[in-house]
Structures are given as structure tokens and as C-alpha cells.
């Protein structure tokens, strides 16, 4: 089946060659004007922007006051064309469009799972309209589909928390539509191209081709719906945009269509700033707009992105700390031809953090290259220190490893070539729990339930490294197999019941796919195995023979101190698990990838995982992403970063997340030094081949005060494992976890 699919794909690709070319990348490369200067040209917000933002702030305050949800439309199933146009204040808005007819009113997108929607609505004391409920008496949703195919083993893994957060009852997200296409070509041309694609899928029809024909047809429908959506706001989306304002508006409409149709866990924007810059530069050159007006357009666009909402159940908010939408925008980076992708609009996007204040959304991600213009590096440092709202990813590494220089960041940290490839999101497996099962003959450490087969009893008073490793590897292999089964079912069903037609309409037909597996708790694994190898670890077992504690005799190297002895264990396990996952064929011939990422669920994982051999007690939080466990890195930040940098990106192509929190003074004594040192820190970290870094520059005192007096910090933003969150919206347990996490406080 595998080879057949590949063959079909070749066939289609060949036929596509004759078609009118949709090539945004070429357009950007040809027209972009790189910017090498500093931030002195930037403008503050206009009166209009400030007034408009004030309305948004007040609405958000009311939203918070109402428990995190302002209003819900319980009558309508959301679609691209479901709602009448909505405005914040029509006279002040330069960029229009809301998901529903009112600011912050949430819409129901029940095809991920009607039950989750019903629950979320009920939590707010409301009820889903009968009419909507009736629809699902006659049709299935994604959630239903998945569970009709799941086997008992997958269900057991899920309920015991071995596999967690799987997108089996909510929308998978992660797909990035190439929203630039609508602005550059207009919907008519895109429809024409899709119709040609459809024609090209002919001949003997196998399952793949039939599905593809159905998909393209639904994409054409979505493009037509976008035209209708545009018309309702008085916009002619059928034709290409002709000005900066239109380009931003068109692009936003394309994104709006996506977030009206889908409530994916993360719906990134891509890499739009330098695309937009081309239009802005043209208008500036023609004297049609001033710098202040250019900034105003960007401010208003970003304001709209900040107002995107999805209807989520309370439990979801608790895990993720508020309701993130992950409108991730990648900024900066280099072209493969050596030019920088930094434009003035890269600066303008970051400037929104001053003009509108700090915010978790959009999730601004700087693609860092050693060759970025120094002026831009400085500005990034300044913005990081002032707002803690940016994350950094290694552009040199990603371009070299993945190939294309035209990419966005899906969700938190994952590379995704724009318009050419997509991702199938798959949350993650709990590695420390896997290790504990390896130590308990395959039984889950808390329930005692038998999960894994053929895991031998570990004899002897002390744990013996070789024997533990053998069991652990066996355990990982079995888990990889079940994990892959679950993922294939999930994505088959998502395609079938909740296909992302609006986003896919802006992506090449039949794109390449990455299957995005994940793993949590790598630092616990490294330390646990290091303890077993270099110290003596005696398991303490209860009457059922389950490990409840571990006595560690002697010292051992810990992850986060740039010590190869332990860092190599972390790298090896990552590689091993990655290779195990790669052994299993994926639905739609997707390519397996792995992430070391927890988002904010490191606290939740900790709660559900028993005591581990590294001395972490039952219930204690994991470190986020690939971070060293807090308090175990003793030699300062560079050593901690160097350990994480040893994890090989090629073994975790979906991303290796690291969160770095530091008090401003520890970055340097003067502001100048702080900015300079942050740049050098990023240069150094990424030169070592590291992938991602969240940067928080905050005082522990500030966080303590925000913990005690949240009302004083409505916009306090911090970065956690791949995205930014509003600190005061994290659960209290999570807030404390963030505060106790290693702050690099050298004096």
C-alpha cells in the first residue's frame, strides 16, 4: 500500500507541472527588501489604535470576570459563512472581521466532538440548541469515529496516562494554511488552480486518489465560501490584493475562514510579515501611506489575532493556562541564498508588543540565525527583556536540516514548510511512566495494572543498569507500536469527519505530511538512568511489589551540567525512541517525527506519575520540554543550555523545547550589557546545534507579587515550553511551579 501511494503521488506531481504556478516563495524572494538598520524608524500607536484596543481590553476584562468566556452562540454550527459580520467599532477598524457577529463571542465547532462542545457549553450554564444536537443523531464526529476504531489496548494506554493529550476528542490543529496565497492570487485564481489539480487526479482510481478528489472538491467549496465571507464585509476576495491594507485584510480573511471552521489546538499564521512588507514598502514608496499608518495596519491586524477565541472546556484551559490559540508567527531568519529575511515589518510586528502591550498571542517566534542583522538582534533582545513575549528558534539548523527557507512554526516549535507540507499532531507519551513500567514487570506504577508484555522481573537489591535498559527499551518499543496505531486512527478519522478544507485550500493538493509524535520527561529519564548507572539505586517496593520509592546511594551526574556521561543518555534515549516510532507505517504515508515538548502539561504529567529513580517524588512536576529538572543544574545557564543542545535535532525533528528564565540583573549590569549578552547567549546556544529557546526575563519578586495580586498584572506574559501564556491565568499550582523552576540568578 505504501509504494502504491508514492507512485500515485509521482503521477499527480508530474501532471501538476503543466499548471499555472502557485508560488508565493518566489514572489517573496523576488520582491522583498531586507532591512539592516535599527529600530529608530518605528512609530507608536495611533489614537485610533489605542481607542480600539481599549475596547478590546475592556471586553477581555469582562471575559475574565465571567470566568473566561464572554458569550457563546449556542444556536449555530460555525462555518466560514455561518455568522453575520462583526465589528469592534466599525469606524475605527482598518482591518475587519470577527469569528462571530460580536467581539469575543465564541462559536461552536462540534465536528471534533459534540460531547466536548456540549460539556463546555454546559459549564457556562447554557445548553446546545436541539437543532444542533439533532445533527449528530444522524452523523458522526471525529471523537465518535476515533473511539469506534480504538482497540482496548489504546484505550488502556490513554486512561492510564501513558499516552496523553491525543487529539481524539478535539481538533488536531497544527496545519498552517498558506494564507498569503489569498492575498497574492485572489480566490478566483486559487479555485482555477484547484480545479486543474482535480482534473489531474484521474485514470484508475485507488483509495488515495478518490479521497484526494473529495478533498480538493471540498477545498474549492471553502474558497468559494471565503468569497462569500469577504462579500459580507464588502471585500472582493476573488481578486488579488492591491495595497498594503488589502494584503493584510485578505490574509486575515483567509486566516479568519480557518478559525471560523476549525478550533484546532494550535493554528499558526505562518511567516507573513515579510510578505506583508512587500506591499507596505510599495505603498510607502508611492506615498500612499506613512510609517505611522503602516504600523497602524500591523497593530490592527495583530489586535484581531489577539481576539481569536475557541470554545474550550474548563479542563482544557486548566492544562494550557488560559485558552491559547497558538497564532504562531515566525519572524526573521535568512534566505538560503544568504540574504536576510528581516524586513522593517519584522520590527513592526515586534513593535506591537509595545503599542498594544505584552501578550501571549500571536505567538511571536524569532527565527534566529548567526547572520541576522545586528540591529534586529539588538531589538529582539530589547523586546525580550521588556516583554518576555518572544521565543527563538534556530533558523540555520532548521534550514540546513529541513531544506526549505519558506517555513512557519506549527503550534509551539515545529518547522513546517509553507503550502507544501502539513503535520499530524499527536501530543505525547510519558517517558518516566514508561521507565517505571520497565521497573515493574510492565505494570503501571500507580494502578498496578499490567500494560506491557515480556518485561522481566528485576532481581537483586540494587537496580542493574544493563537489565533496566533492556526492559526500558522493550517498553519503549511496545509503546511506539501502540502509539502509532492510535495516531493512524486519529488522523484517518479527523480527515473523514473534520477535514480542514479552508486551510487545505491554501496548500498544495496532496502535500507531504509529518506525523508529529511527542515525548515528555526526558530530563527525568536521563537523571534516573544516570543514577542507576553511576550511583547505587535501591527500589523500595510495596506489598504488591510495585516501586513506591528509590534510595539513591552516592552521587551521579545530572542533566543540565554539560556532563557528557548523563547528557549522552538523554540523547541516546531520544534517538532510540525516535527510531522505534519510525518503524511503523503511517496513515497517508506520513513521515514520523518526534518532539520533546510538554507545553504546560508538565505539571499534569507530574501529578499522574509515581516516584522516579532520580529522586523526583510522586506528584512532583516534570521539567517543561527538554529542560533540566529544576535545582539540579549547578554550574549556571551556559552549562544547562549546553546539555540540552546535545539532544540531536535529527532525532526530534518536531522540536526540542527549552525554557529559560532569568532575572534581568543576571543578564548583565547595564541594559546595554543585558541586550548584548542575550544576543551572545542565543548565538552560542544555537551554534551548538540547539533548536529552540523560550526567554523569560523576569524578577522572581514580580512573579511572587503577581501570584498574590493577580489583578495588578492583567498582561503579564511568560513563556512556557513553546508558547507564551498569561501568567495570572495559569493555575495556582502551575504558577508556583514556574516560580520555583530554575531562575538563573548568578550574582
Amino acid at each position, binding site marked *: 500500500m505504501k509504494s502504491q501511494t508514492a507512485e500515485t503521488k509521482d503521477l499527480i506531481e508530474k501532471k501538476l507541472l503543466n499548471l499555472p504556478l502557485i508560488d508565493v516563495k518566489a514572489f517573496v524572494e523576488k520582491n522583498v527588501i531586507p532591512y539592516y538598520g535599527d529600530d529608530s524608524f518605528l512609530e507608536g500607536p495611533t489614537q485610533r489604535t489605542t481607542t480600539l484596543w481599549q475596547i478590546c481590553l475592556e471586553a477581555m476584562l469582562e471575559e475574565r470576570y465571567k470566568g473566561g468566556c464572554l458569550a457563546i452562540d449556542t444556536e449555530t454550527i460555525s462555518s466560514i459563512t455561518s455568522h453575520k459580520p462583526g465589528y469592534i467599532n466599525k469606524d475605527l477598524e482598518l482591518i475587519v472581521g470577527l469569528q462571530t457577529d460580536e467581539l469575543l463571542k465564541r462559536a461552536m465547532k462540534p465536528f471534533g466532538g459534540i460531547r466536548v462542545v456540549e460539556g463546555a457549553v454546559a459549564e457556562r450554564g447554557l445548553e446546545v440548541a436541539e437543532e444542533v444536537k439533532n445533527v449528530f443523531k444522524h452523523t458522526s464526529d471525529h471523537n465518535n469515529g476515533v473511539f469506534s476504531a480504538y482497540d482496548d489496548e489504546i484505550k488502556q494506554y490513554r486512561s492510564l496516562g501513558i499516552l496523553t493529550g491525543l487529539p481524539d476528542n478535539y481538533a488536531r490543529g497544527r496545519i498552517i494554511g498558506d494564507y498569503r496565497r489569498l492575498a497574492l492570487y485572489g480566490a478566483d485564481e486559487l479555485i482555477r488552480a484547484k480545479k486543474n489539480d482535480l482534473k489531474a487526479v484521474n485514470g484508475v482510481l485507488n483509495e488515495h486518489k478518490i479521497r484526494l478528489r473529495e478533498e480538493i472538491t471540498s477545498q474549492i467549496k471553502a474558497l468559494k465560501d471565503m468569497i462569500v465571507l469577504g462579500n459580507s464585509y464588502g471585500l472582493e476576495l476573488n481578486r488579488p490584493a492591491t495595497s498594503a491594507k488589502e494584503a493584510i485584510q485578505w490574509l486575515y480573511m483567509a486566516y479568519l475562514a480557518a478559525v471560523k471552521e476549525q478550533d484546532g489546538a494550535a493554528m499558526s499564521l505562518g511567516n507573513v510579515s515579510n510578505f506583508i512588507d512587500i506591499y507596505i514598502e510599495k505603498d510607502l514608496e508611492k506615498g500612499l501611506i506613512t510609517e505611522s499608518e503602516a504600523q497602524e495596519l500591523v497593530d490592527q491586524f495583530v489586535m484581531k489575532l489577539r481576539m481569536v477565541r475557541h470554545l474550550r472546556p474548563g479542563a482544557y484551559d486548566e492544562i494550557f493556562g488560559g485558552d491559547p490559540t497558538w497564532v504562531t508567527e515566525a519572524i526573521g531568519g535568512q534566505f538560503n541564498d544568504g540574504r536576510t529575511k528581516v524586513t522593517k515589518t519584522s520590527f513592526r510586528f515586534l513593535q506591537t508588543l509595545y503599542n498594544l502591550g505584552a501578550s501571549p498571542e500571536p505567538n511571536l517566534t524569532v527565527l534566529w540565525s548567526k547572520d541576522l542583522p545586528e540591529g534586529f538582534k539588538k531589538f529582539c533582545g530589547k523586546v525580550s527583556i521588556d516583554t518576555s513575549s518572544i521565543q527563538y528558534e534556530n533558523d540555520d539548523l532548521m534550514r540546513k536540516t529541513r531544506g526549505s527557507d519558506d517555513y512557519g512554526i506549527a503550534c509551539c516549535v515545529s518547522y513546517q514548510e509553507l503550502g507544501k507540507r502539513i503535520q499530524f499532531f499527536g501530543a505525547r507519551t510519558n517517558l518516566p511512566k514508561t521507565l517505571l513500567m520497565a521497573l515493574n514487570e510492565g505494570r503501571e506504577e500507580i494502578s498496578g495494572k499490567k500494560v506491557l508484555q515480556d518485561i522481566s522481573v528485576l532481581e537483586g537489591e540494587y537496580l542493574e543498569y544493563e537489565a533496566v535498559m533492556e526492559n526500558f527499551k522493550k517498553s519503549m518499543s511496545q509503546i511506539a507500536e501502540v502509539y502509532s496505531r492510535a495516531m493512524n486512527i486519529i488522523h484517518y478519522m479527523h480527515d473523514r469527519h473534520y477535514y480542514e478544507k479552508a486551510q487545505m485550500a491554501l496548500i498544495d493538493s496532496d502535500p507531504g505530511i509529518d506525523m508529529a509524535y511527542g515525548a515528555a520527561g526526558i530530563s527525568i529519564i536521563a537523571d534516573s538512568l544516570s543514577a542507576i548507572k553511576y550511583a547505587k539505586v535501591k527500589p523500595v517496593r510495596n506489598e504488591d511489589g510495585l516501586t513506591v520509592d528509590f534510595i539513591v546511594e552516592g552521587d551521579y551526574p545530572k542533566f543540565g551540567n554539560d556532563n557528557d556521561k548523563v547528557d549522552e543518555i538523554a540523547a541516546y534515549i531520544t534517538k532510540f525512541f525516535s527510531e522505534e516510532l519510525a518503524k511503523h507505517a503511517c496513515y497517508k504515508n506520513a513521515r514520523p517525527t518526534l518532539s520533546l515538548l510538554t507545553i504546560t502539561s508538565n505539571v499534569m504529567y507530574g501529578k499522574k506519575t509515581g516516584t522516579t529513580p532520580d529522586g523526583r517524588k510522586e506528584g512532583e512536576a516534570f521539567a517543561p520540554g527538554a529542560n533540566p529538572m529544576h535545582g539540579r543544574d549547578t554550574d549556571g545557564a551556559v552549562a544547562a543550555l549546553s546539555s540540552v543542545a546535545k539532544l540531536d535535532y535529527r532525532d526530534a525533528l518536531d522540536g526540542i523545547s527549552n525554557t529559560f528564565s532569568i532575572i534581568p540583573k543576571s543578564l548583565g*549590569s547595564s541594559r546595554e550589557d543585558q541586550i548584548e549578552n542575550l544576543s551572545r547567549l542565543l548565538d552560542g546556544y544555537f551554534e551548538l546545534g540547539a533548536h529552540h529557546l523560550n526567554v523569560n526575563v523576569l524578577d522572581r519578586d514580580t512573579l511572587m507579587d503577581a501570584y498574590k495580586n493577580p489583578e495588578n498584572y492583567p498582561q503579564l506574559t511568560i513563556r512556557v515550553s513553546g508558547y507564551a501564556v498569561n501568567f495570572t491565568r495559569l493555575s495556582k499550582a502551575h504558577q508556583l511551579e514556574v516560580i520555583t523552576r530554575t531562575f538563573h540568578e548568578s550574582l
Partner: protein
Amino acid sequence: MKNTSTTGSGNLIANLQKAEALRVHSIETFGTHDGPGIRLVIFVQGCQFHCLYCANPDTISIDGGTLMSLDQIVAKAKKQKPFFGKNGGVTISGGEPLLQRAMLKELFNKLHKEGIHTTLDTNGKVIDKQTKDLLETTDLVMLDIKHINNDWHHKITRLSNVNTLKFAEYRESTGKPMWLRYVLVPGYSDQEEYLHQLGDHFKNYKSIEKIEILPYHKLGVHKWEALGWKYELEHVESPEITSLKKVSDILQQYFRRVEVG
């Protein structure tokens, strides 16, 4: 209180200098306050002084710490090079590095071979041939002046400042760069007349690029307790912003650059 007289520790120091290693208290890989740029800071073990306010009293005894070979340190520094940029490098601090000066000369030579910038953070208590040799390979000296007045210097450190001033004089004669560091302790080192005297003493030094005022703090008090030593500055609080400003104004009359660390 123990092992702090210079005579008593002579043998141990001699021993230390035989091995191709440094006696190290701890390291900080992201040093941003001990010289320019991002620095690998090696805090060495042992000090002749016994400052009333020492924030790292556990570095005073020359018995503690762990041995780290010079090659180990060089390897660490080399690995960390991507972080150094144009300005960063290695700083040896303490404790008092000069106790291991012969070995440091070796280390600095090795670091120079790797193109790594070297900084020495010292109290300047020893000024002999070996120190002078070390200073040859020291790109930047950060000299801690505890007090300009010898009586007060005694009161603060138990020893005299004569050598420290000689050390400064020697560095000046080499024409190579030096920063001064001055811990400002209310009631001990903030007397106006002595601040003027300090300025006056150094005003013609060309090698001094800047003076850093380090406001006294109590973050190390728990370490005194852990050692079972009595902390005598319990009653002294960190200097007020206004007093820092005043001191900085005075010093600005004499120094090119005054920074508050």
C-alpha cells in the same frame, strides 16, 4: 578563623602549586558580572583576607574545594567559546586567585593559545615575581579595593592594604587595563573623606577603565551560619539609593567611568 593566617597555610599553597590543577570552589558558566561579555567564571578556593562581609566565606579556607586540572578548565572554556562573542572569556575569581598564581599563569597561557580572553578578579595581596608573570598573560585585572585607609582595611579584612596598592601601581606601570571594584558598606567604606582619598590616589592612573561600586548585601549570611562563624555585620543594611548616588558622584570627580554593579 582557622587556616587564615598566611604563614600557616604556606605548605598547603606550595602543594597546590605542584599539581597541574587548580583548587576550585565552584564555577559559573554564565558569568555576566565578572568582566566583559559572557564569561566562564572559576571561583577558586582559599583567601588570605577575612572580610567582615565576605559573601562567599566558604571560599576562604584553603582546605575545601575540588581539584580541577588545567586541561579540564581549558576544555570547558573551549566548549563555551560560541557564547563568548567578541568580549567574553574566562575570569578567575575566588576566594583569592593569587594563592594559585603560578598555576594560573599556565592556565592563562593555555587560554591565550585558544584565543580566549583572560580576566583576574583579585584582592592584590601578593605582588611578587610570580604575580608579575601572571599579569603578563592577564588581559584584564579586576582589583578589589577594600579600603584606602589602612586602619579601616585592617578592620575589614584583618590585613593591610599596602600590597594591594603596590599591586595597582605595578599594573599601572605595565599599561594594561584594570577595573577597580569597591564594596560599599554603610559605616565601613562610605566615609566621604576616604572616598576622596581613594579618588585622589588613583586619579592619575591611565590603566583604570572604570570603577564598579558593589553595594553591600547580606545574601551570604547563611553561609557564615553554616560554617558556624559569627557574622559581625548583622546590623548593617544595604546602602540606600541616595547614598549610592552620593558615592558615585564623588568618585566621578576622579574616575573616567563609575558604575554601580
